[in-house]
């Protein structure tokens, strides 16, 4: 792929704009609250788009196109089964506790609801995970640019990291969020013409149906058995493992996305943020999954669309989008497409760094090192955490380049920590008898069970490092099953320990637990301002998509 002056010009203009947004916002950021929480003053439309854009990193854009080619439309379950329901649940049921409790972060809610050790466990694992993810994002960007465009690996890392650093350091979370909105539109408008051109070339949806294996064009049809669908999963692990445990665990408890709703102007906006975000989210498969299916049809009809292979001979599905950009985009719009990819990496990195600096400052530094500092003090600590977060990300990117196995291992360990998390929050919010000890030991038990399940099962040659008592049909199926098993373990242990330990007094739990929080009387008569009605609309549309592509 060869870029021309026009393409470089477009990339350069993008860099100028993202840094410019940081400069423009600099004068508005004066305190720790401004820098880390945007002073809870961001309009609804911005929080909503930032909510999905924070998740629209490289993993989403490149990864979902790859999954589209590998698993077909079954990939849409990440949106139409997982994300949609979880985002509605977050808005309707959980946001009143996050926002209403005045917690500044998800770990801080755990402190208010349970105790300091549960918060610290969550804050530490989250902080390490976010800088690690940020580094992986940086590494993936530099690798892609090196392979596709022949750019220097070191230069890509330092340029991307410097740009992200400048706009976060200057404008804090507000700058990251504003840039996420620009990045959202750039990604959607930069990739949409590719989908249009690709569809046109294969002869529209008819062409897809004629040229792609029917097994990849359904979302439910082959789920009766793992052998009947390309994803290798069954309906139970899909619905319970992905749709409930993993999706709710991510969308309802991951501070990276929840933070975007927590900086809304008021509770009503905070509740509507994830639900309004769910509307573009359920349409995203057209942008991120469809390219993977289009390339299958193109491969069937034309030559030159083959994917490069990995060392083991399997197709490298992560190259779906770069290959389509190379083959379908002429110079000019190619610059926009490449900029959209760069934007997705930077969006992912910035989201992680801003979540990291908030959790570090409020949940680790303020909670354990300096409790009563001034607003200005925490402002500087937040800025120092941004510098540290970026530097650790760069370091992680280099480690990833040299020791890929270590990164795989770390990613696996983090997935064990994440899997049971929703059980803790669910019980904490809806069962007032849940205690801090129950939550803490439940989390540890869930994490341990996830590791144990991985050690006792095998899929695609992975796992089984203790013994092989069961073999899953695919790695995806193994991940979904690990998720629900660890959820159950966390759920049961939390209940058992809670029953034998002392709960907090009811008056301490007002605003933190469902049964002890006065129900809001919705004064809004207008349906589009009511989170419940908005949620119902999203559900109906999602249901229609599931029926159409059954």
């Amino acid at each position: 792929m060869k870029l021309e002056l026009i393409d470089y010009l477009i990339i350069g203009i993008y860099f100028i704009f993202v840094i410019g947004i940081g400069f423009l916002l600099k004068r508005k950021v004066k305190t720790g609250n401004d820098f880390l929480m945007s002073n809870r003053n961001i309009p609804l439309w911005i929080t909503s788009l930032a909510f999905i854009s924070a998740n629209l990193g490289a993993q989403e854009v490149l990864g979902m196109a790859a999954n589209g080619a590998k698993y077909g439309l079954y990939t849409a379950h990440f949106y139409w089964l997982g994300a949609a329901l979880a985002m509605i649940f977050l808005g309707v049921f959980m946001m009143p506790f996050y926002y209403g409790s005045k917690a500044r972060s998800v770990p801080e809610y755990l402190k208010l609801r349970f105790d300091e050790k549960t918060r610290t466990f969550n804050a530490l694992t989250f902080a390490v995970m976010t800088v690690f993810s940020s580094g992986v994002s940086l590494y993936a960007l530099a690798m892609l640019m090196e392979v596709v465009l022949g750019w220097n690996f070191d230069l890509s890392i330092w340029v991307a990291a410097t740009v992200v650093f400048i706009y976060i350091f200057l404008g804090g979370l507000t700058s990251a969020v504003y840039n996420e909105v620009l990045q959202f539109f750039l990604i959607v408008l930069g990739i949409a013409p590719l989908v249009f051109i690709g569809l046109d070339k294969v002869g529209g949806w008819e062409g897809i149906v004629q040229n792609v294996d029917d097994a990849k064009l359904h979302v439910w049809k082959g789920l009766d058995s793992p052998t009947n669908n390309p994803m290798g999963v069954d309906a139970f692990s899909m619905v319970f493992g992905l749709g409930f445990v993993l999706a709710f665990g991510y969308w309802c408890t991951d501070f990276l996305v929840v933070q975007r709703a927590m900086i809304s102007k008021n509770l009503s906006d905070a509740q509507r943020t994830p639900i309004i975000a769910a509307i573009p989210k359920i349409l995203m498969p057209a942008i991120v999954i469809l390219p993977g299916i289009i390339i299958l049809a193109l491969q069937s009809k034309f030559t030159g669309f083959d994917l490069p292979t990995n060392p083991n001979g399997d197709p490298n599905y992560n190259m779906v989008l770069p290959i389509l950009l190379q083959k379908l985009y002429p110079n000019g719009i190619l610059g926009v497409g490449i900029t959209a990819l760069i934007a997705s990496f930077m969006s992912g990195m910035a989201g992680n760094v801003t979540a990291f600096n908030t959790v570090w400052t409020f949940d680790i530094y303020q909670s354990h090192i300096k409790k009563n500092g001034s607003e200005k003090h925490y402002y500087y600590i937040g800025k120092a955490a941004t510098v540290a977060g970026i530097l650790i990300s760069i370091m992680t990117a280099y480690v990833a380049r040299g020791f890929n196995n270590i990164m795989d291992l770390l990613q696996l360990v983090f997935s064990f920590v994440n899997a049971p998390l929703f059980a803790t929050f669910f019980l904490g919010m809806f069962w007032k008898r849940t205690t801090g000890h129950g939550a803490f030991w439940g989390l540890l038990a869930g994490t341990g069970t996830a590791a144990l399940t991985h050690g006792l099962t095998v899929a695609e040659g992975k796992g089984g490092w203790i013994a092989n008592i069961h073999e899953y049909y695919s790695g995806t199926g193994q991940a979904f099953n690990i998720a629900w098993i660890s959820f159950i373990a966390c759920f049961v242990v939390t209940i058992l320990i809670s029953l034998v330990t002392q709960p907090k007094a009811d008056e301490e739990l007002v605003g933190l637990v469902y049964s002890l929080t006065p129900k809001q009387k919705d004064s809004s008569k207008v349906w589009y301002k009511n989170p419940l009605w908005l949620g119902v609309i999203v559900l109906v549309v999602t249901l229609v998509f599931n029926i159409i592509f059954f």
Partner: protein
Amino acid sequence: MNKLFDLRFVIGLFFLIIGLLLIGYSFLSDATEYKKEVNLYCGLLFSSFALLMFMLKQKNKDDEV
């Protein structure tokens, strides 16, 4: 200066610049007809989106008045 703080204006400005660049490039480059058309239509799409952003910003301003 104030309108630079309005994100709709900033996003609109970005896409207007990119859109105009693509439209200009489609006329000036010596690429094939198909490649010129792709850039032209994408440029028009981005410019239209930019105008939509400007209109939304203006509407919001009028509502505030």
